[in-house]
């Protein structure tokens, strides 16, 4: 690109000149970033630190803060609903995440075939994600109504007696996992974009080697998609461990039937804003934070073994 003279003469002078401008511009860097730095302190740093502090205190916003040491944490371990929340949340994450990964990849692979009306199908799978959660709750409560719901009616026509779905503690979590799959469109779009990023060269190479169909998918496409799978999995797990709005909207925060839909974040919310136990809720929040961080870290550690990055990344 540059001849020896430009490199020796003009370039350094330009670089030098730029440096002068850069140092004068530095103060604008601070000015432009000032609102966000303020926001970081107000809405992230201070709450994060004071949350640790509150977790060692008793506080209901009205009476003064009272130091209780590790009592909140001790109390938590003896709180049966704390354990119920953990159990329900892990159950949910353990099923909802793998199902959504498999279903999401499958739909994306189908959409990536040389088909017509691809954008139509993509839209069909995507629009459910636009539905606000409360509306999702209403729609599915009606669809899954044990007596008059459409789903049980359809099951009946093919000779299957439908379960009581949300009315039965054994079926309520599977119902919720099913509903969550309706909103899979986001990850389908991400997988599809990942698939379209995979170079056609791989396809041609595979064809030359005589690999086709499912073997090509398994040995070439999926390994190349692992970075995207990894991203979706991390986001999926983080979201699943924080699941709140859908079960809250379905049960008005009660977690019924028989606490089978009482998830960790719901118990946390109830403690904070129903019973005004701010310290107790803060302790719960920190336990959740640490669990999420640990799981994310472990996943990142494992990623070198199964996530395939192109040489340069």
């Amino acid at each position, binding site marked *: 690109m540059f001849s020896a003279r430009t490199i020796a003469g003009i370039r350094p002078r330009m670089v030098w000149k730029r440096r002068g401008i850069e140092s004068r511009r530095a103060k604008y860097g601070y000015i432009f970033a000032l609102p966000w730095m303020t926001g970081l302190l107000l809405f992230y740093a201070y*709450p994060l630190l004071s949350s640790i502090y509150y977790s060692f205190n008793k*506080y209901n916003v009205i009476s003064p803060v009272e130091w209780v040491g590790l009592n909140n944490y001790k109390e938590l371990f003896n709180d049966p609903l704390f354990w119920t929340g953990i159990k329900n949340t892990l159950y949910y994450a353990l099923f909802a995440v793998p199902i959504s990964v498999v279903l999401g990849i499958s739909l994306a692979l189908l959409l990536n075939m040389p088909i017509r009306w691809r954008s139509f199908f993509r839209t069909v799978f995507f629009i459910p994600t636009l539905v*606000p959660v409360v509306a999702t709750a209403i729609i599915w409560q009606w669809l899954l109504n044990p007596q008059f719901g459409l789903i049980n009616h359809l099951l009946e026509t093919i000779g299957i007696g439908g379960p009581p779905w949300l009315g039965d503690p054994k079926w309520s979590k599977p119902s919720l996992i099913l509903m969550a799959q309706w909103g899979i469109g986001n990850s389908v779009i991400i997988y599809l974009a990942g698939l379209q990023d995979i170079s056609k060269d791989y396809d041609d190479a595979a064809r030359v080697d005589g690999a086709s169909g499912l073997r090509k998918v398994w040995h070439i496409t999926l390994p190349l998609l692992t970075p995207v799978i990894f991203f979706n999995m991390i986001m999926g797990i983080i979201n699943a461990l924080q699941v709140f709005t859908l079960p809250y909207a379905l049960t008005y925060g009660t977690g019924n039937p028989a606490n089978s839909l009482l998830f960790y974040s719901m118990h946390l919310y109830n403690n904070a804003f129903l019973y005004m136990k701010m310290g107790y809720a803060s302790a719960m929040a920190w336990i959740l934070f640490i669990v999420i961080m640990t799981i994310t870290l472990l996943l990142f550690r494992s990623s070198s073994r199964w996530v395939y990055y192109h040489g340069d990344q």
Partner: protein
Amino acid sequence: MNVIRKKYPIILTYIVLIVAGAVFLLPFIWMVSTSLKPDTQLFVSPPVWIPNPIAWENYYRAVTVVPFFTYMKNTLIVASLATAGAVISTPLTGYSLARIKWKGRELLFIITLAVMMIPSQVTMVPLFIIFSKLDLVGTFLPLILPSCFGVPFFIFLMRQFFKQLPRDLEDAARIDGCSEFGIYFKIMLPLVQPAILTVALFQFMNSWNDFIGPLIYLNDEAKYTLQLGLQQFKQAYNTIWNQLMAASVLVVLPIILLYFFVQKSFIQGITFGGVKG
């Protein structure tokens, strides 16, 4: 033989996609169908698909039984102010992180990425305490203020967009004697319009769909947003499915219409983190 082997997977793909697509559309069809049913056709077996007569009055009742338009107005106030805040604040920071060299810039960028990992449950309680000390609980401000200072994901998105712009433009403007603010507002900002549209869209969506924020901060029914109002409606009248569905349609429809107008920005925003980030 070869043709058949080639066609076979495609036909199978169509079949699976059509069946799966029908399953994904079914809840919408059922929602619209139910919203137009007279009371007598709700609890019948076999179910009625096309209501007869069509009960348009469900929509009228849905917006009058509860103060639907008040909810709508409140939601629009919160969503548009939060969106304005995000659209002003996040390009500022994104620009600073992408195009100005200053000490601590890298650190701020790393912190911005790191705070995305903090679960909202951790900051939720102290923020409520702050807002209640400021006597702002019950107002819209706790739902609007945070985005006016910046939203980490949007800042990240803006930074990546600003980084792609060529250097020559601002150099030329600087030689012409343009001030730093002039360069930002007149030259750089117009060039990242697609990114700004994506930020606006997602912030608006997030505010429109937000449930937990209004649940924590709004306690007066006159201040409820649509999500909270819909939840209230559901709790109070949990068996009048036709009116509930009519209300749901009215809450869902604006967002879906919005999607069809700005489809590209939607897809761009969603694929940004997973593939291009």
